C-alpha cells in the first residue's frame, strides 16, 4: 500500500455494532461537531449520525483501471472485486466464492494476478488494474482470448475471465513450460463445467505461438 494516506482511517480495533456507533459518536462525530456544531448536533438528534459517519468512513482512492484513471471515495471494507462490479460496472470480473478459493475474480494489479475478492479497494491506491474488459485492444482480441475461443476453453463462461487473466499471468511468470506446469499454476482457478483440458490446450498454444502476452 502507498504511504500516502488520502485521509485518516479508523484504528484497527475490532468494533461491534453498538460500540462502533459509540465510537463514531465520540470521535468522528465529535470532530464534526467541533467543525460545525449546530448542524451536526441537530443531525445527531435526527439519527443523521450514521449518514455523517458514512461520509467520514470513506477514503479517497486513486486507481487506474484498464487505462482509465478514477478518483473515488470508498469505504475501506470494500473489496476490489465489489468496487469493480458494483461501483465501476466492470462486471467481467466474477464473484465465485469471495474467499480467494476459486479464482473467478482474478485481475492484474500492476501486471500481477491477484484475487480481487481478497484485496481491499484501498490497497490498490495509485496502482494499475487490468480486468478482462481491458485485455483486448478494441475489437482485436488478446491471443489468449482467441485461443480460449478456438479450444473451447469454457462452457458457461463464468470462470472464464478469471481463467484468462490467470492464464496470461501464468505465461508472463514463466510457469507455462509444460502441461504439468500449466496445470499446477492454473489450479487456483476452478471451472465447474470442466473445461480444464481445453484451457491447458489454449494456454499451450499461446505459449508455443510466442506472441507477446
Amino acid at each position, binding site marked *: 500500500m502507498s504511504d500516502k494516506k488520502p485521509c485518516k482511517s479508523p484504528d484497527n480495533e475490532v468494533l461491534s455494532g453498538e460500540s462502533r456507533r459509540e465510537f463514531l459518536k465520540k470521535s468522528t462525530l465529535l470532530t464534526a461537531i467541533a467543525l460545525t456544531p449546530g448542524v451536526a448536533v441537530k443531525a445527531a438528534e435526527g439519527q443523521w449520525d450514521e449518514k455523517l459517519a458514512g461520509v467520514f468512513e470513506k477514503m479517497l482512492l486513486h486507481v487506474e483501471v484498464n487505462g482509465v484513471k478514477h478518483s473515488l471515495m470508498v469505504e475501506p471494507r470494500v473489496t476490489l472485486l465489489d468496487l469493480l462490479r458494483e461501483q465501476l460496472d466492470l462486471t467481467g470480473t466474477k464473484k465465485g466464492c469471495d474467499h480467494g478459493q476459486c479464482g473467478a475474480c482474478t485481475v492484474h494489479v500492476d501486471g500481477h494476478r491477484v484475487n480481487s475478492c481478497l484485496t481491499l479497494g484501498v490497497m490498490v491506491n495509485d496502482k494499475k488494474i487490468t480486468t478482462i474488459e481491458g485485455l483486448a485492444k478494441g475489437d482485436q482480441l488478446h491471443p489468449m482470448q482467441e485461443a480460449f475461443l478456438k479450444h473451447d476453453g469454457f462452457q458457461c463462461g463464468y470462470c472464464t475471465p478469471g481463467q484468462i487473466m490467470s492464464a496470461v499471468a501464468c505465461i508472463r511468470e514463466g510457469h507455462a513450460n509444460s502441461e504439468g506446469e500449466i496445470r499446477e499454476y492454473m489450479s487456483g482457478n476452478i471451472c465447474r463445467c470442466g473445461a*480444464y483440458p481445453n484451457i491447458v490446450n489454449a494456454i499451450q498454444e499461446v505459449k508455443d505461438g510466442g506472441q507477446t502476452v
Partner: protein
Amino acid sequence: MESKILNKPIPEEGLSRVDGRLKVTGKAKYSAEYDVKGVCYGVMVGSTITKGNIKSIETKTAERAPGVLAVITYLNCPNIPGYHTDNQPDKGPLKIFIDDKIYFNGQPIALVIADTYERALFAASLVKADYTKDQHQTDLKANLSSGFSPSKAKDYLRGQEDAYKLAPVKIEHEYTLPTEVHNPMELHAIIACWDADDKITVWDKTQGVKSTQRVIAQAFKLPPENVQVTAPFVGGAFGAALRTWPHEIAAVAAAKLVKRPVKLVLSRADMFTSVGYRPHTWQKVGLGATADGKLVGITHEASGQTSVYENFTEGVVNISQLMYASPNVNTRYRIVPLNVNTPTPMRGPGEATGAYALESAMDELSYALNIDPIELRIRNHADSDPLSGKPYSSKFLKEAYQLGADKIGWSERSQKPGSLTKDGWLVGYGMGAGMFGAYRSNATVTARLMADGTLFLQTSVTDIGPGTGTAMASIAAESMGISPEKIRVELGDSALPPSPTQGGSQVTSTVGAAVFDACKELKDKFRQLDGGADSTDYTALLQKNKLQKLEVTTASKGSAAMNNYAAFSWSVHFIQVYVNPNTGVVKVNKAISVADAGHIVSPKTAASQIKGGSIMGIGMALMEEAVIDHRYGRLVNNNFADYHMPVQADIPQVEALFVNKPDPYLNPMGAKGMGEIATIGVAAAVANAVYNATGKRIRELPITPDKLI
C-alpha cells in the same frame, strides 16, 4: 434428415461458441450484473440451529445500522398471497419467512436489505435469534429405518424376487455416496424490480425462465405475462437452478416492501444450503449369474436423504431395471426425511448415483467370474428395453465399448488386480457405462431473416453452458445454407417463444428440432416467393419482393411414432489411474468417455460437454463430500477450500469420443441428449480402476487416500 442440406457451412470440428466472444471479453452479463437504477442489496441470515423454533429475533440493532432499509423476518414479511399452506411434505419448496419453525441448519431466518452490499453484510451480522431447540436428525445411516417408499417410486419386480441369491455365482455389496453439491461457479443471484404494483422484472439465475415466471406469478398472484424473467447467460447450474428457490421469492417480496429494486446474491456458504444438492444415498446391489456370465438376477436397494418438508425422489434404482437383460430384477427405493434442506437433481441425477452402485457391482461380478468386465456387459447386453419390451429407437453401446477400449488401450489391462506398476505407482484400468432417457418435448422458435441476410433465432430456453445457442446456429446454418456468422441467437427471456427448462438432456433434441422445423417453414416461404425455386440468396429474394424481413414462428413437437420405441442415450467411460502405494494418492492418468448420443450437431461444444461431465464424475469418485457434524447438524466444509472439487492439477487430457450415428425417430437431426450420460457411470469407472490397480474395493465415496492406505 427430412430436408436436403444445401451446403456445408459448418466446419468439420464444429462451430466455436456463438456467445464465446462475449464470454471471453467479460461482456456476457449474468444475473447479478445488470445495472438497475436505485438497486439495493440483500443478505440472508441463516438459522444456527438445526431443528426447533425461533423464540425471539432481535433486528433493532441491524435496522439502526447505516444504510439499512429493512430487515425481513417471518414477523414482518409482506404477504405472499400464493403461500396457502405451511411447509407440509410435497407442497413445493420451503416457504420462506412464514413462521418460526426451523427445519435445517442455515434455513433463512432474515433478509437484510441495505443501500450497499457492505452495509447489508455488516447489518446481517447484527441479527440475533434465540431458539427453542429440538433434537435433530441429520445422519442418514442412523435413520435408515425411518425411510419410506415415496409415491413416485414404487417397488419394482420383474420375474422372481431376489433371484440372485440362488445363482451359481453371486455378489452382494453396499455402496455409499455422500452428499455432493452442484456448486456452479456463478452464485445464485436475482435482481427483482417491480415496474408497477402488479408487474415485475427479474434478472435471475434460472435454468427455465418460463418456469420461474410461472412460480413467481403463482406466488404473487400475478398474470404470468406481468412477470418478466431474464437469464440470457447462466454461469452453470447442473440442476441447481431447475426450480425457483425461496431466496428468489424473498427477493421479490423484499423489493415490494422497500419499493426499490433488490439484488440478492447468495454467498458460497448459502449455496450449500439453499439450492439443493445430490443427496447422501446408501445402496445395496445383489447380482447373480451363471458361470458363463449370464445375469440371473439383479436386486438393487437404495435409501436417499430428503428434507422433512419435501419428499425428494429420484431414479436411483431405475438403471438396474433398464441396463441389462436380466430375467429377474427387483428394486426398492426409500427416502429418509432428515433435518436438511431439500435435495435437487444434480447432473445425471439419481441415475449417476445408481450407476455408481450397479457398475461397481458389475465389476465385482466380473472378478468373481473371471470374465473381462466389457465381455461381461456384452454377454448381458439388452437388445430391446427390458422394462417396456419395446425396441430401442437407436442403441450403439457395443460400438461405444469398442471405441473406448481401443482408445485407452484396454488390452494392456490385467484381470489380476495390483499386477501393473509404473515408476513405483500401481496402474489400473476401469470402465463403467451409463444411460439416460432421450427425450423430446415441445418448443417454439421464431426464425426471422432480415434484409441484410442476418437470421435471428429466438426462443426462451436458457443456455447454462452446454452450447445450446451454438447447436441452434449449427442446425440453422446447415438447414438454411447460410454462414453461421449471419446467425444471431436470442435466448433466456420469458418474453420469447416457449421452450423447455434447460435440463434432463432434452434441449438439443427439443429446441434443435424446433429450429430445424422453423427453418424448414422459412425456406418454404422463400420458395413461394421464388416461384418454387430453391435459391438461398435470401437477401435478393427479399429485395425483389420489397420485403424488410421474412419471419416464421414454429411450434414443434415429437411424432407419435416415438411411443413405439424406447429411446436412450448411452455412454461408457474408461479410466486409467495411477495409485501411490505409500500415500494412497490416486491420479487419473487417462479418461476416455464415449457417447452414443445420436448425430452430433455441434461437435466442439459436444466434446466439451462430455469432458466436463467426466470431470464432474471424477470429482464424485475421488473428492466431493459435504460433511455434516451431526452433533450440531451443521455443514463443516461449506466452502471451496474444504469441499474439494476437481482443479486443473487433478485432471488429465480427458477425451470425448462419439459413435455419431443418428437416431432415426427422435428428431429430424437424429440427435440424442448427452448432458447426463457424460457423468453417469464415471464414478464407477474410477472406483473400478482403483480396484484394478490396488485390489482394494472402496464402496464408500469419495475414494480419498486414507481409505487406500
